[in-house]
């Protein structure tokens, strides 16, 4: 069926895969009609997709360093775009984003702008140049450009702090989804999630992760878009929701006024009854509800963080050329845009279907006992994601008496809108794909930095290929376990730690990376001071704010990267200028990086 090279057949292979997945969805829908239980459908969806990823991971096994670290540098532009989109969109994007928009509105959407705008920085400042460099990892670039083990080590430290903060959240998310879909306790589900993640990455490194991420993107985008379009059409809101929901947005504002949003405040005693993690609607849906600086500072942190997160940057090391790396950033953002532009639409549809008394699904204004008798309310109340209480004792559900968890917007809306259960199973598979693909990228970024930069470049430069790859795999497993163990403790929420990861990366890596390409005078001393100083300043500010320090310039614990990166910039420039300029060879290297043609700085195998 597929003649010739694997790479040439990619469109056919993934076309067949997509077709197969759609057939699987249809089969599940038929099975549901025939009486298969909801539980079993959920298990089938998650187990089937995870097995496919594991199979791809196994088929992509390799014993070559350039295949293990950079997928042999032959991933075509569009496919690398899909893989990056899956790598990028985490469990938080998939499960929590629409919920954040639902509850916080405009102020939250700074994240949407930040998480997309960052790609302009990636494309114009960094990706093509780092691709030309020919490095395996981000610290590999820092170490070679600035020279010296100290610079390399500092980069590995920043990378590990940022990526590890991020990965625990992702393993936590895989655990949450696996525990719901497979009906097992969370502490066990975390390790089931970990096992799935390792199966995708251990045997084939970057090559395996690339091809599973493409497969995961296809699952997650179908799982996100299908319900949005279906609900919109079912409600009669519009055939193409993105272009047609203006009336619905206006209608929500009308209903907010009618139900007296913000007029009735719940007393502290009443709020105590509400289970932890659930919130009510307190902010207007489409109104500008934050100060410009709050919005902009959050967006800036997310943008600079995007450009500094190594697991994203290393995806552009896998393209065949510099030109392809540049274009591939555009495709990545296009595939991300498909999901991000749908999240606000899902939030709108979800909110309207719960609020509008003219719709059959609307619950505000109905009697409390009637709402408590609804099937889906009982299900999600049991799952601790929904809660109603008659605070004012009038027997009717008011807007301020309805509480929901952020995850419920994505997970429960299909059920509320009356879609068949097969869609909920699909959404669970999509969430799993999103969390797994990001966790894969992160675990690989950390273990590659440790195995390539610490073990091979610093400890044992004479190690043979086989030994290097064994060390890489052992580290992969160890880091996965460390992440899962911390995830099982459930210290932070999913979204909070994701935002911190961006701030850490921005504090320590943004300026050392950018100035490495754009400022020839930058030297090793400056870079080390910038990386460590930025990371320390950022962390100190975070700790201070969390222990009660009011902070300055309106910088909060979500935007501490502003402090960290400014310290990093100042230190880097001052220290560079006070010490010797880089030698002629380094300057020539920077010149060479700035043109696409010619040999890479680092050889094919290094």
């Amino acid at each position, binding site marked *: 069926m597929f003649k010739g090279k694997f790479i040439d057949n990619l469109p056919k292979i993934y076309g067949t895969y997509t077709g197969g997945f759609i057939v699987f969805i249809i089969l599940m829908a038929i099975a549901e009609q025939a009486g298969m239980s909801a539980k079993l459908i959920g298990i089938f969806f998650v187990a089937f997709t995870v097995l496919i990823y594991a199979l791809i991971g196994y088929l992509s096994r390799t014993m070559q360093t350039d295949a293990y670290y950079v997928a042999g540098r032959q991933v075509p532009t569009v496919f690398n775009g899909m893989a990056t989109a899956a790598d990028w969109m985490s469990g938080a994007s998939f499960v929590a984003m629409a919920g954040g928009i639902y509850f916080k509105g405009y102020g939250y959407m*700074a994240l949407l702008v930040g998480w997309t*705008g960052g790609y302009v920085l990636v494309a114009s400042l960094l990706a093509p140049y780092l691709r030309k460099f020919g490095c395996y990892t981000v610290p590999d670039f820092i170490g070679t450009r600035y020279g010296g083990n100290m610079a390399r080590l500092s980069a590995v430290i920043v990378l590990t702090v940022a990526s590890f903060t991020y990965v625990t959240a992702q393993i936590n998310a895989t655990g949450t989804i696996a525990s719901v879909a497979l009906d097992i306790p969370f502490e066990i589900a975390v390790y089931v999630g970990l096992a799935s993640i390792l199966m995708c990455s251990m045997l084939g490194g970057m090559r395996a992760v690339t091809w599973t991420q493409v497969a995961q993107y296809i699952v997650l985008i179908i799982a996100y878009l299908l319900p949005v379009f279906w609900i919109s059409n079912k409600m009669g809101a519009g055939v193409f929701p993105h272009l047609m929901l*203006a009336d619905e*947005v206006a209608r929500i504002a009308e209903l907010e006024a009618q139900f007296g949003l913000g007029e009735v405040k719940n007393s502290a005693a009443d709020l105590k009854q509400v289970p932890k993690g659930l919130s009510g609607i307190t902010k207007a849906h*489409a109104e*500008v509800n934050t100060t410009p600086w709050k919005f902009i500072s959050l967006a800036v942190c997310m943008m600079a963080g995007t450009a500094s997160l190594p697991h994203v940057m290393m995806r552009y090391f896998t393209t065949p050329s510099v030109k392809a790396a540049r274009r591939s950033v*555009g495709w990545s953002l296009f595939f991300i*845009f498909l999901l991000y532009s749908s999240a*606000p639409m899902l939030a709108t549809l979800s909110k309207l279907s719960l609020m509008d008394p003219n719709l059959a699904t609307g619950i505000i204004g109905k009697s409390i006992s009637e709402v408590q008798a609804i099937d889906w309310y009982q299900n999600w109340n049991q799952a601790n994601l929904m809660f109603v209480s008659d605070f004012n004792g009038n027997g009717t559900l008011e807007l301020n008496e309805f509480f929901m968890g952020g995850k419920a917007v994505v997970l429960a809306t299909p059920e509320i809108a009356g879609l068949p259960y097969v869609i909920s199973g699909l959404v669970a598979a999509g969430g799993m794909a999103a969390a797994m693909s990001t966790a894969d990228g992160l675990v690989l970024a950390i273990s590659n930095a440790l195995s390539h930069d610490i073990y091979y470049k610093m400890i044992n430069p004479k190690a043979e290929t086989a030994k290097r790859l064994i060390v890489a795999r052992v580290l992969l497993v160890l880091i996965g376990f460390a992440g899962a163990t911390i995830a099982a403790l459930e210290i932070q929420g999913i979204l909070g730690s994701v935002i911190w990861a961006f701030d850490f990366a921005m504090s320590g890596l943004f300026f050392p990376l950018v100035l490495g390409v754009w400022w020839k005078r930058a030297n090793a001393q400056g870079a080390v001071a910038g990386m460590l100083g930025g990371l320390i300043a950022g962390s100190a500010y975070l700790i201070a704010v969390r222990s009660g320090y009011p902070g300055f310039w309106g910088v909060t614990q979500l935007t501490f990267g502003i402090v960290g990166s400014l310290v990093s910039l100042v230190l880097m420039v001052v220290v560079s200028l006070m010490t010797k300029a880089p030698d002629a060879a380094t300057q020539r290297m920077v*010149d060479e990086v700035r043109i696409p043609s010619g040999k890479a700085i680092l050889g094919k195998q290094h």
Partner: protein
Amino acid sequence: MSFWVMFRLLTYREGKKMSKQQQHWEKTRMLLFITLAIWFVFSIGIFFFGAEMEASSIRPLGYPLSYYMTCQGSLGIFVILIFWFANRQEKIDEEFGYTEREDD
């Protein structure tokens, strides 16, 4: 940021003494400044005026302008901007003969 672009545009000269590589880099930098200026406007600049955008009578597809820009507007512009940037950079590389061989 945009002042800087203006400054570069005004002071930009076809340097006779510049080597081929310096000229290439000069053009590449110019493209970077233009790209970053557009990026700045749509990621930071317009959000200084959230309230003004909300009150504006410009309503793309019927949505309030502030809402539209955060859900689709800025995001879509970034996608187009990157592809535009990639095309321009490829042209610059071609002009100076720095295009990679396809079989690389």
